[in-house]
């Protein structure tokens, strides 16, 4: 008779091995490493919850303390490589293979370990892609997750930063895996249950909250006038004509400027109620003035943001909240929302080439993708119409019969021609290509492919790539907004002039925008303290953003 429940029996054996350190499901923090050594087996696929924001930091530290003779050759499958410990497991010889999505703060070290052969790289994914693979060919045997609190039955409250947890647990717990949670405290009654206890096998009381970083707070005080000009161009040249109501913003200063211009410049343009009402977005503090001014109808969040909890609680008409009142975020659902239900993604990038490919990889840094490629790509499976989608589709393919024509998502790259440290945003060849050659990767790490990009906005104007009919036009449209960079100076002046006459390139003056009007006084808030005022004192910014 064949054996159909090997996985289930293997899990029972793992749980029995771990039970030696547990009272019920509860394991003392001092026994965390011993528990992991008992439950995890060499070669296992392990998801060590590293999300964009929250980190299972206690479990990460416990894992690197394991004996490499006991635990080795692990295959880490996690969306965020964020803490130093996430790479220490490779240096210590505990883990060997890595599949991930985002590595912001560790981008330099991960590059070094890849070059040095310490990490065997599966692939750098987008969030949705990695989550999808959790259910097909990268299902974890063990998930090490983080929550705010647990009750005695192992039910978990993840708090506002639910993020990846339900997805990770779903894939692990329902496919014979073991789920180990670190929690900030154990309580009699949870505010709400985010993860049912029957999906959680061990709980460790860390006695403190998990580590979480404020990644989405942009200080209005640091927004430049050039960024304000790009924001004015975007509002008047893209938001207004397409009527973009459903959207996602990146986390750069240009889009923060747009958020802060909605109640001032946007109001003057008469756009209130017509644009920017429905969002897939983390709780950006810079959106507070627009929310308070009645621009925003609702926001679904990937994760939360440090300091925003009380504000979110008091604005449940805007945010998704649980019965307890606190935010419920969910990265997988929000990524899906951004992919399928948003008509626009607008974000900054570090490099754009002549085909419009853009990348945040620069020499020696592999930051990964996170969610931008999900937001910043045309969803080929989309079937519902909307005004901006239809209009963009018509611009791209005016010859096709309307009823058969695909719409297009607006994918907008915004930035200054010269970015930080005067580095040009436009390049002939992406650093990502050199990296792919050096590491012999099959694919260069491209954040947004050129054929998905519809507009590029710089202080020089807007290039509408939907209206370009061939590669030459595309190249000259890009050169035409590349200003004084080498790429910009190599433009064909007459060609660019013709594109401008066709409206492919629109300069500030073509849109009736005087660059001298781009003034910081246009920002609805010019400091973090202004944001606190706007929130009626509900926003509590972390100390590193204060100047009082």
């Amino acid at each position, binding site marked *: 008779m064949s054996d159909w429940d090997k996985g289930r029996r293997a899990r029972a054996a793992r749980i029995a091995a771990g039970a030696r350190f547990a009272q019920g499901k509860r394991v003392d923090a001092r026994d965390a490493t011993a528990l992991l050594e008992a439950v995890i087996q060499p070669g296992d696929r392990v998801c060590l919850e590293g999300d964009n924001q929250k980190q299972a930091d206690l479990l990460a530290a416990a894992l690197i303390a394991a004996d490499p003779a006991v635990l080795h050759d692990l295959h880490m499958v996690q969306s965020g490589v964020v803490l130093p410990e996430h790479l220490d497991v490779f240096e210590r010889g505990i883990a060997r293979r890595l599949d991930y999505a985002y590595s912001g703060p560790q981008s330099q070290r991960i590059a070094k370990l890849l070059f040095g052969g310490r990490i065997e790289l599966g692939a750098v994914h987008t969030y949705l892609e990695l989550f999808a693979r959790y259910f097909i060919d990268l299902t974890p045997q063990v998930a090490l997750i983080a929550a705010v609190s647990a009750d005695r039955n192992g039910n978990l409250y993840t708090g506002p930063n639910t993020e990846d947890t339900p997805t990770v647990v779903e894939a692990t717990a329902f496919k014979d895996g073991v789920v180990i949670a670190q929690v900030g405290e154990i309580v009699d009654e949870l505010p709400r249950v985010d993860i049912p206890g029957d999906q959680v096998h061990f709980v460790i009381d860390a006695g403190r909250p998990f580590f979480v970083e404020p990644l989405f707070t942009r200080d209005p005080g640091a927004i430049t006038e050039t960024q304000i000009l790009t924001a004015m161009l975007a509002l008047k040249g893209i938001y207004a004509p397409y009527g973009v109501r459903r959207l996602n913003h990146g986390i750069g200063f240009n889009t923060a400027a747009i958020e802060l211009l909605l109640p001032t410049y946007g109001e003057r343009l008469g756009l209130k109620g017509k644009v920017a009402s429905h969002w897939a977005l983390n709780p950006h503090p810079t959106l507070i*003035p627009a929310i308070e*001014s*009645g621009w925003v109808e609702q926001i679904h969040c990937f994760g939360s943001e440090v300091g925003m909890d009380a504000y979110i609680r008091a604005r449940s008409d805007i945010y998704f909240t649980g019965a307890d009142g606190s935010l419920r975020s969910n990265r997988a659902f929000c990524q899906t929302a951004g992919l399928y239900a948003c008509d626009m993604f607008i974000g900054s990038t570090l490099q754009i080439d002549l085909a419009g490919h853009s990348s945040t990889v620069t020499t020696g840094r592999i930051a990964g993708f996170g969610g931008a490629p999900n937001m910043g790509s045309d969803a080929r499976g989309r079937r519902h119409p909307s005004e901006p989608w239809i209009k963009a589709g018509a611009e791209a393919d005016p010859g096709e019969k309307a009823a058969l024509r695909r719409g297009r998502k607006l994918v907008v790259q915004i930035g200054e021609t010269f970015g930080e440290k005067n580095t040009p945003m436009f390049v002939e060849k992406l650093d990502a290509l050199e990296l792919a050659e050096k590491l012999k990767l099959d694919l260069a790490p491209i954040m947004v492919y050129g054929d998905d990009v519809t507009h590029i906005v710089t202080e020089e104007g807007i290039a509408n790539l939907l209206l370009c009919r061939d590669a030459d036009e595309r190249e000259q449209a890009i050169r035409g907004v590349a200003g004084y960079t080498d790429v910009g100076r190599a433009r064909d002046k007459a060609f660019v002039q013709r594109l401008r006459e066709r409206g492919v390139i629109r300069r500030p003056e073509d849109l009736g925008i005087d660059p001298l009007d781009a003034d910081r*006084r246009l920002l609805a808030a*010019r400091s973090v303290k*202004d944001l606190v*005022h*706007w929130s009626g004192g509900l926003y509590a910014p972390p*100390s590193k953003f204060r100047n*009082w």
Partner: protein
Amino acid sequence: MSAASAATRIDDALAQSWYEASARQRVDALLDRGSFVEFIGPERRETSPHLPLFDLPEQFDDGMIVGRGRLDGASILIAAQEGRFMGGAFGEVHGAKLTGLLRAARELRTPVVIAFDTGGVRLQEANAGEMAIAEIMRALLEARLAAVNVIGLVGGRAGCYGGGGLIAACCSALAVSEQGRISVSGPEVIETNRGVEEFDSKDRALVWRTMGGKHRRLIGGAEIFVDDTVASFRAAAIALLARAPALTRAMLVAEQARLETRLDAFGDCADALDIWRRLGIADAASVPAMSYGEFDALGARITEVIHDAR
């Protein structure tokens, strides 16, 4: 708070923010309308001789604007640092312009207002910058000995650090806003030299309660606490020019005595919060979040008798 009223309030207050304004905007708004006459203006292109060696951009006024004008009808000399150029740092030309202004003030017996916005000496021209600080302090004290008042205003992005902090300490009187910071060693310098345990420069709440305008006012390091508006700074400059103390031997003795008293009173405090509690502020933790009006009322109640000596 309704959205509309919030919008109006924030818009009004910030439309004339000192912190946000450029040095030239500050000068223009501070002085009686149209009265400013610049000395060695940008058209003279007196740029730094050092910055090109480092392939760094120059600015035609080297980040220092000096000139004369009228304040509430009275003739004054004025200097303003541009904190957005090299962090308002003192270089050779930048410093020489202020030295010259202060020497002229002594000759002309005309009071001076200095709008500080500086991180200290420009590292690329360190020796020239350090010498400039010494020359400025000498010229400032010589002007004061000739009964010329020199008023310092602090509320810019770069704060008032390094040599700027030393020069500010030589002034007849200071006005500071919440955003303004006055110190010699900056937060990063302290952290680098003494370790993060001594001072965490990333803890901005700590930075502000140690060096910020509210703390400086509470311990008597600045004579007037002003709101972050150009109008408020202008009113403070007018008030301080009218009442600034002369630099005399008696004044120096009083200043020394006050410093000793301050050290005795607060020398064992590890944090500004401890000092504020000792000053009699029961809810010390609430001070940073206080609005200008609330804090001004508190300051009037708490500060020891207004002392000529800082």
